[in-house]
């Protein structure tokens, strides 16, 4: 059984104004995570990737209406009664956020922060939790864990704090970890280290990982499979290595081509226009206005995701473009 099953997820936000029309923030998201699998969700701002995470944690604003299915081990998340939801949030899933400084109470010690969740949910008592935290800290390469536990957040560097966040997330032994841009605020060398620790821990414990990022290079390197999001829709899904080597959706291909290369001077191919949000997309494919391959059909009819082998692509022309897009990546 899959750990997480998302099928045709749709999220609409009711307008704050009385007569305003609802806004679609997620149009069509489907993805699955098997136990121990790392799945990357890649997208630009407004693509709905963070909203997807919120939907999984049932943390959407109250004015949101959710459609489609969201299941954790076959149990519907939106239908979970209060007690199950509390257990789901405290013990089965953990979150790692982008900015650790904004998510750690600056007035309490690292130790308090790490064990608060597991103690509050009754999983461990204080002494057990502290001991487990120490063990975990050593696992993630923190020297002198005892001292760290009594320190305050401002005494730690950003990279170290993010490691604390990983420890906090793993302490309740969750089955699934949701990481929302966990390294975006960090320097590249620290990013490398934090990602190494995260992927190593995830693999050792066979925990599922949902990794949200805007960085396709990073996601491809650390995940098993990828979902590329654009305007609230997963436009392409499949094994990371395959997508990276041969994108089937023009948006994925464009994202890869727009990234400047560190090894050669080559004018990055920019995507015209700006990233659009789901509610701005009209009738047709949301990417049509920025897509060099768009035809009439693309502007009038929204492409449904179609699965061929391990890949799912939402593009009318994915079959005919296969060779062209692969060519673009090799060039």
């Amino acid at each position: 059984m899959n750990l997480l099953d998302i099928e045709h997820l749709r999220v609409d936000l009711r307008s704050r104004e009385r007569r305003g029309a609802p806004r679609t923030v997620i149009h069509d998201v489907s993805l699955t995570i098997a136990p121990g699998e790392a799945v990357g969700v890649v997208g630009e701002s407004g693509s709905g990737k963070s909203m997807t995470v919120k939907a999984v944690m049932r943390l959407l604003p109250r004015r949101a209406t959710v459609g489609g299915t969201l299941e954790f081990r076959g149990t519907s998340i939106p239908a979970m009664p209060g007690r199950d939801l509390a257990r789901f949030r405290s013990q089965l899933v953990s979150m790692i956020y982008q900015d650790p400084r904004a998510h750690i109470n600056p007035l309490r010690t690292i130790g308090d922060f790490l064990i608060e969740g597991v103690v509050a949910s009754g999983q461990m008592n204080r002494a057990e939790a502290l001991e487990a935290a120490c063990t975990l800290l050593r696992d993630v390469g923190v020297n002198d864990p005892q001292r760290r536990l009594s320190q305050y957040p401002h005494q730690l560097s950003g990279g170290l704090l993010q490691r604390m966040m990983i420890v906090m997330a793993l302490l309740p032994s969750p089955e699934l970890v949701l990481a929302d841009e966990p390294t975006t605020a960090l320097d590249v060398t620290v990013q490398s280290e934090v990602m190494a620790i995260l992927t190593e821990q995830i693999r050792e414990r066979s925990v599922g990982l949902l990794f949200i990022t805007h960085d396709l290079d990073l996601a491809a390197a650390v995940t098993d499979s990828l979902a590329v999001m654009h305007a609230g829709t997963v436009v392409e899904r499949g094994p990371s290595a395959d997508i990276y080597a041969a994108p089937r959706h023009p948006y994925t291909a464009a994202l890869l081509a727009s990234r400047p290369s560190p090894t050669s001077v080559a004018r990055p191919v920019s995507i015209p226009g700006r990233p659009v949000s789901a509610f701005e997309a009209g009738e047709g494919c949301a990417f049509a206005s920025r897509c060099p391959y768009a035809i009439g059909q693309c502007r009038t009819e929204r492409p449904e995701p179609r699965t061929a082998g391990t890949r799912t692509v939402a593009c009318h022309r994915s079959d005919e473009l296969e060779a062209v897009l692969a060519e673009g990546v090799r060039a």
Partner: protein
Amino acid sequence: MSEPLLRVANLRKVFPGQGTADDLVAVDGVSFDLQQGESVAIVGESGSGKTTTARIIAGLETATDGEVLLDGKTVAGRGIGLLRAGRDIQMVFQDPFGSLDPRQRVGAAIEELLAVRFRQPKAERRARVAELLEQVGLDEQHAGEYPRSLSGGQRQRVAIARALALQPRLLILDEAVAALDVSVQAQVLNLLIDLREQLDISYLFVSHDLAVVRQISDRCLVMNEGVVVEAGTTADILDHPGQPYTQQLLAAVPRPGWVPSRRAATA
């Protein structure tokens, strides 16, 4: 070799510690030259002193020691006040949301600078605003809009247009494309590459992103903890890094077949 446009000699900046904290040496003996029309990048991670160096050169921060010469004239350094370079040095900042006055229309923001610095008649200013907007890839219609109705990339273009309005000789770009979405980042990066070809302007490009630096700079300095650890042509340094720190930086850039490594940050 002719007189460089910019000469930075032994620049040093110490921030006095608050209370019991030690003094912080942010920049420690940085020296380099920048020729007319050249693009030099300062590469480093947070806390490396790259932004402080750029801010001293721009005249936004005083230096503890050393000096900065523009065309042989001292514009910053020990004992020199702020903002001495005049309009010859302009700067574009990282944050596209804070870089523009939220209550000033785009056109007015550019016109204000023209009015104050060149005292042109109104019709001439209007024409120049249109020209500048076109130069950065925006429409004349954008002149009537407020920053809030523009996207991040468009705002950054306006910030560039404003800086160019004063016809500076050196443009300092402080992480100018770092906060933009990947697809938009490429647009602004290409714009900057094109502008340098057209305008014979010099860039001092401050960035943590080696891939971006590769595209836009002729030479680069790698900074770590306030010190320049390596300097040379960008191609040389990125292809054959001589210093362990530079090697670590390069090794940490995600790319095909890359595996994150724990050792990268131990230095």
